[in-house]
């Protein structure tokens, strides 16, 4: 085209980034091997898969397809390396990580070109966003390696970590996974996505360049069905970290259930993008571009649901369409395109299928007038209006450049629509009114909320989901806890196999509480509890001539003592097998009612932390007034000595004080990522937590679980110690007299595992804690996969509830909360 001609038309023209260096790098090395022990090895099955350039549809490289045999080799290498790497001083690890960050920067352009070739995303994004964030992540976590000894006392690395990453941000997701793992002293076996391995392989070369000890990082390319599967099921892997679809996350949750593997899942989303009528609409339009046309919309936290205040909807849609007309799509290596290629033909088909479904269901589709390149996998930016929350495209994650727009009338309705999803990864809130924006942000169920911005990421600020978007956080200090465990736990063994109750659901089943191994108390069976045994339901202690007044606790639901739905009761026995009382036999409907009551009390989280603290002190006060009675009850049920029982009551009172103290002191932090603004990392109440108490320490176990949760604003449904439920049921009156609002604490007695199953399966329970036998833990984890609720289970490990390190503290507070990061850029 002549210059004169261009001078007239003022078109942009092609601006290709040279691919030679990247292609030469590939050509010199392929077929690529597996990276184990810092060397390249051939896959055991001698199979290779092809990596394709999505922008051209042409083959790019051949990479090894690992098998379970290779996974064994890699895990073994990682295990061997862990022996020394796990003990390597933080400063030494920091030096390695600093070197990695520097090498990422040295190879920045090669990495950007490879990523763009392999994934189809634009070179602008890989060059300006992905790769700089990768380097930043390693610098940031090098810092945490340096500080681990001082800042993470009492924590130890988890061990060998299996990491499975997606194709949408191949190297960035690698960095998010590997950096915190290395910082905390873990070793890694990482599986890149099937379609996008190349930057991970370049990263492996960097591991050689910085002379990272062999086996610390191992990278296995191949098919998810082979490598991912084997990694997830490998018995010598201590943790799985996964980013990808909710469906796969769910199957990983099931596969690892009961294995004791730590698990963090970062899954799908259908994130709301909320626009109020006082927002800067032109900036909103650019925000939408960054929300849904960033990386072709193949972003888990893409703002894919545009929620507009009704009075500005038409104007905003007009502006959006005008903007879409001059978006540019094309070869990912063109430096002047906004939208690159969809990662694979399969993904493209799926997007097409969902868009067709949207049209069929009556939504109005709009696409710009220009056409996409005919070669390669391209899909135009697409805007749906006339969408209702009931349509498929408003609910399912499309993972493509497709936006659905809906309107709202009031802030309340905006929040309701925003939260009307099974996901909870991110949200954008646009308003120039600080009062409105900061009112809305905390009310949205999502791990990241961006005010007047979108898709901002930084190593300093945690990222992760609520609900079916997964659990665990990546980034920030909160991300470190995914890669450590309490040092005491490392030493613990599975030494407390509590028999599972045998009389499930049966009324008056004595069998269900037998066989409890209270090893710690075995020697003290005969100690000073004579005369206490039959206090309840037996004879009157002071006037032997009078029968005692029967006192049969019901269930405690919504602040009321309610009869169990089943109409049955179960006996509670002392150590000698004498019946000392009955409790209600709770069932599925009682749990249902309790969960409803717990939800009705959700306002508990919004009240002042000071008030929650006062109520916890008040519980302690009222418990203290009856400490003798509670001690006797413990003795009666458990055969603990009077001294032990008194100690348990005192510890419970102290524990209540601890969480009253924490209630207004566990407050989150302010991150300062590189922008003018701040990120508030707020620990928010998780919601409704189901909890199965340990059988031992009937009072302290109960208080140790309930107190931190309600201190943080959660509401709870508690299954008390099955062997000794009366200490918990005796608390009804304590709770009632301590101003605990109705529904904050709900107690359902009965068969622990039956009731736990109902709670774990319940879609409206946000987290499930279970302190019981290993088999029960497994069932809870399995059942939790339904709504991907968080779980916290004991794996049958003994926990010393009297100990302040094991029995209370920040571990409990972390389990009670989820961190929301609210990004607040500012400046007038």
């Amino acid at each position: 085209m002549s210059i004169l001609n261009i001078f007239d038309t003022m078109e942009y023209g092609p601006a290709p980034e040279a691919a030679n260096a990247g292609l030469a790098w590939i050509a010199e090395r392929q077929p690529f091997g597996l990276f184990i022990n810092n060397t390249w090895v051939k896959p055991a099955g001698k199979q290779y898969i092809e990596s394709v350039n999505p922008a051209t549809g042409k083959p790019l490289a051949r990479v090894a397809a690992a098998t379970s045999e290779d996974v064994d080799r890699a895990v073994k290498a990682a295990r061997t390396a862990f022996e020394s790497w796990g003990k390597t001083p933080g400063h030494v690890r920091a030096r390695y990580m600093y070197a990695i960050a520097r090498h990422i920067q040295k190879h920045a352009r090669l990495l950007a070109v490879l990523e763009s070739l392999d994934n189809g995303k634009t070179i602008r994004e890989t060059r300006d966003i992905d790769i700089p964030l990768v380097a930043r992540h390693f610098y940031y976590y090098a810092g945490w390696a340096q500080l681990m000894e001082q800042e993470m006392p009492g924590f130890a690395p988890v061990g060998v970590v299996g990491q499975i990453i997606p194709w949408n941000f191949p190297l960035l997701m690698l960095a998010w996974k590997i950096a915190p793992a290395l910082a905390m002293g873990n070793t890694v076996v990482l599986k890149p996505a099937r379609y996008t391995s190349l930057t991970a392989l370049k990263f492996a070369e960097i591991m050689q360049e910085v002379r990272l000890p062999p086996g610390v990082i191992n990278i296995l390319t191949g098919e998810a069905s082979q490598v991912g599967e084997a990694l997830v099921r490998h018995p010598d892997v201590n943790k799985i970290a996964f980013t990808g679809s909710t469906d796969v996350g769910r199957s990983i949750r099931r596969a690892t259930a009961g294995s004791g593997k730590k698990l963090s899942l970062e899954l799908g989303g259908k994130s709301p993008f909320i626009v109020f009528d006082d927002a800067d609409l032109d900036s909103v339009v650019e925000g939408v571009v960054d929300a849904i046309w960033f990386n072709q919309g193949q972003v888990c936290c893409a703002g894919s649901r545009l929620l507009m205040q009704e009075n500005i909807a038409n104007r905003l849609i007009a502006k959006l369409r005008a903007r879409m007309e001059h978006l540019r799509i094309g070869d990912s290596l063109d430096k002047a395109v906004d939208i690159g290629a969809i990662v694979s033909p399969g993904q493209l088909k799926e997007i097409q299928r969902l868009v067709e479904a949207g049209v069929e269901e009556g939504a109005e589709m709009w696409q710009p007038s220009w056409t996409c390149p005919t070669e390669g996998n391209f899909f135009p930016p697409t805007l749906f209006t006339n969408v209702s929350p009931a349509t498929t495209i408003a609910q399912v994650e499309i993972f493509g450049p497709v936006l659905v727009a809906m309107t709202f009338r009031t802030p309340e309705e905006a929040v309701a629509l925003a939260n009307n999803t099974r996901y909870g990864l991110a949200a954008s809130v646009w308003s120039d009114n600080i009062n409105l924006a900061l009112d809305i942000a905390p009310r949205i169920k999502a791990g990241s909320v961006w005010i007047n911005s979108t898709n901002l990421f930084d190593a300093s600020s945690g990222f992760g989901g609520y609900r079916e978007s997964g659990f665990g956080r990546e980034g920030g200090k909160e991300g470190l806890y995914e890669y450590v465990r309490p040092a005491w736990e490392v030493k613990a063994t599975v030494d407390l196999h509590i028999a599972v109750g045998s009389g499930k659901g049966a009324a008056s089943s004595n069998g269900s509480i037998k066989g409890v191994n209270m090893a710690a108390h075995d020697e003290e069976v005969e100690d000073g509890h004579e005369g206490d045994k039959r206090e309840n339901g037996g004879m009157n202690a002071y006037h032997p001539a009078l029968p005692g007044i029967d006192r049969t606790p019901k269930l405690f639901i919504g602040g009321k003592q309610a009869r169990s739905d089943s109409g049955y009761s179960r006996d509670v026995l002392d150590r000698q097998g004498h019946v000392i009382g009955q409790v209600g036999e709770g069932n599925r409907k009682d749990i249902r009612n309790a969960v409803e009551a717990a939800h009705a009390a959700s306002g508990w989280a919004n009240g002042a932390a000071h008030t929650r603290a006062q109520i916890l002190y008040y519980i302690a006060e009222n418990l203290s007034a009856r400490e003798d009675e509670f001690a006797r009850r413990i003795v009666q049920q458990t055969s603990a000595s009077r001294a032990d029982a008194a100690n348990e009551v005192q510890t419970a009172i102290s524990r209540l004080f601890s969480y009253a103290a924490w209630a207004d002191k566990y407050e989150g932090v302010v991150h300062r990522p590189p922008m003018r603004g701040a990120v508030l990392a707020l620990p928010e109440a998780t919601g409704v937590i189901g909890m199965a108490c340990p059988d031992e320490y009937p009072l302290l176990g109960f208080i140790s679980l309930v107190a931190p949760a309600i201190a943080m604003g959660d509401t709870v449904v508690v299954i008390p110690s099955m062997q000794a439920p009366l200490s918990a049921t005796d608390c009804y009156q304590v709770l009632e007299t301590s101003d605990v609002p109705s529904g904050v604490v709900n107690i359902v007695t009965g068969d622990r595992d039956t009731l736990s199953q109902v709670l774990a399966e319940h879609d409206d329970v946000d987290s499930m804690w279970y302190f019981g036998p290993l088999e029960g833990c497994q069932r809870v984890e399995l059942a939790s996969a339904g709504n991907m609720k968080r779980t916290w289970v004991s794996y049958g490990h003994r926990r010393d509830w009297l100990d302040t390190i094991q029995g209370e503290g920040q571990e409990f507070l972390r389990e009670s909360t989820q961190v929301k990061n609210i990004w607040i850029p500012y400046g007038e």
Partner: protein
Amino acid sequence: MTTTRKRTEAEEITPHPTIEPQGRITRNPGMPLDMDWVRQARVNRSAVERRAASIPTRRTVKKEWQAAWLLRAITCLDLTTLMGDDTPGNVLRLCAKARRPVRQELLDAMGVGGKGGMNLRVGAVCVYHNLVPVAVEALRGSGIPVAAVSTGFPAGQNPFEQKLQEIDASVKAGAAEVDIVISRAHVLTGNWSALYDEVRAFRAACGDAHMKTILATHELATLRNVGMASLVCMMAGADFIKTSTGKEPVNATLPVGVVMTRAIREYFERTGYKVGFKPAGGIRTAKQSLDWLILMKEELGNDWLNNSLFRIGASSVLSDIERQLSYFVTGHYAAAHYNPMV
């Protein structure tokens, strides 16, 4: 920038096309001051800065496209000298460069010289009032207009009557364009009607001469003020809105450009009149001139990519553009002394 004036959806964005052939446009007649509109201007600074930062990274032009765009940038240049030591001598030199901004051999090599090529010249020459006659004489027959800075440039702290007289004198001296400065105090004190009246009076004084309204954005303190002042000046009849005098500590920046071009778009969408944009000050490199062209194309479209609606106030940038064109033609970088100085 955006405004959210309350109105019914029926009157949404219905441009009234006033485009005349060959880039000539109907002058913006102005309109009554509409404070509802002005007050509802919204500018979110952080978001605007993010957008501005991505303008040079989302788009680029290479090779022939870059050469053509640089030639286009030259045609949009207001070649400027505004110094205390300006004399007829250096103004004459500037005018000579304005007629022949690029070496003929480079134009020939690019196929744009000679017959059927373009008559490459800058958009205007911009000087102080005293030098207007010199420039007018030097540019006679070239078709290049002379612009005079006026109204107490750069600070605008002269008596109002004097300002009108100054405009009048420059127009009489042959200035076809007048770059006026607004009273920043009106913006900072929120006295929008005073600003409107002032600019309206300037426009009347300009008569047929085109009026470029300099906001001196750095002294307006906030981007929201920039957005509001842009609207008021357009309502008062500005033909162009211009960022800076070149004398403020910070002059043309892309965030300011984003706000002002969005205001221009909004004004066009509501009134159907196209107002021009002129960034000035601090634009020294060829790359910067391309960034500003990209901003215009992205925010306003191709209609704003010619000198009837876009000017760049600068002088040294021309040297760098010529150097880049020389590189494009020869494949190596020229020393400054190979290109005739500005």
